[in-house]
């Protein structure tokens, strides 16, 4: 089983590498063909080191304790579920969440980059959602930037003695929002308006932010729900992951 999983991770790395060098740029869910080639390559290259680090960090976690695989798989599955649900929002358009907060809190942000890219490839290939050319950019926003912010927020909350579950909520909600902020910036960099990049970023953010705000809250809630459940039933695993003392 572990060997197979290792193989799977290696394949996903290779994919990332290949797409990082070949025509490639993929931000969270920037549509296929909507980023100029240069940006595709650049974002792919930026994401690559994180993916490599993520691969090693997952390997290390599994070597430390084989049992970590259960909640690691769960974090991955959580991203699968959450990012497949398109939820109607107050602005009259639908969007979906990222689900990366859980993994970031349990395993650290770089491990999530691997889990995230698996989902992104699945969606790009089978759903024509996001895209292979925009994979690098989408990976950066959803599987790297968002989780890193989530992780940071959670750590800060713990330092400040904020309630653990409140910390989980904030981390997941803001990680989700941040993903879309990064997507806006990525699009703005590629498509600066005449008035400049900032205006352009504002425009994209104006499209994404109001839609994403309630979804960020929903994502925070759902992450807390699964965390409560895990706290009740999977204490040994959470202790291994360093979530519980």
């Amino acid at each position, binding site marked *: 089983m572990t060997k197979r999983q290792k193989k799977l991770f290696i394949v996903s790395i290779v994919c990332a590498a290949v797409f990082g060098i070949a*025509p490639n740029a993929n931000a969270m869910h*920037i*549509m*296929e*063909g*909507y980023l100029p*080639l240069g940006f595709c390559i650049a974002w792919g290259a930026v994401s690559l080191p994180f993916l490599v680090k993520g691969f090693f960090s997952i390997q290390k976690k599994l070597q430390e304790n084989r049992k970590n695989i*259960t909640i690691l*798989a*769960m974090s*991955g*599955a*959580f*991203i*699968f*579920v*959450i*990012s*497949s*649900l*398109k*939820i*109607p*929002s107050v*602005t*009259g*358009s*639908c*969007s979906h969440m990222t689900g990366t907060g859980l993994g970031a809190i349990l395993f650290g942000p770089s491990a999530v980059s691997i889990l995230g890219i698996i989902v992104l490839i699945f*969606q*790009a*290939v*089978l*759903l*024509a*959602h*996001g*895209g*292979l*050319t925009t994979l690098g950019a989408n990976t950066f926003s959803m599987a790297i930037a968002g989780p890193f912010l989530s992780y940071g927020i959670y750590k800060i909350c713990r330092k400040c003695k904020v309630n653990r579950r409140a910390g989980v909520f904030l981390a997941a909600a803001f990680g989700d929002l941040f993903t879309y902020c990064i997507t806006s910036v990525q*699009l703005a960099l590629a*498509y*600066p308006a005449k008035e400049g990049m900032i205006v*352009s970023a504002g*425009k*994209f953010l104006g*499209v*994404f932010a109001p*839609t*994403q705000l*309630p979804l960020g809250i*929903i994502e925070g*809630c759902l992450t*807390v*729900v699964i965390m*409560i*459940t895990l706290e*009740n*039933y*999977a204490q040994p695993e959470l202790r291994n992951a360093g979530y519980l003392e």
Partner: protein
Amino acid sequence: MKHADKRKIAVILAAVTLLAVVPVIALKGVEFGGSDDAGSQVVEEIEEGYEPWFTPVLETMIGGEIPGEVESLMFCIQTGIGVGIIAFLMGRFVERKKWENGGN
């Protein structure tokens, strides 16, 4: 599971449901398209007549857009894979806890 936690989960899930359902009921006659599409529209607004330079592999293979039904099938498969893994592992955790607590 602790009683307080159970109640918390119920409250949170109710709130989530409200957050997702209220917009649909409150905003009548709205299309609820995808925000990714809205993003593409902004691109076209800033750069008039922009044509994506690459079409999704699957769309190239079938020579057109993926039919809506097939797309929802794919989304369901994605959800199904995720839910399957979570449910399987969760079931094991719950049973394990039962056994640890003396078999009931």
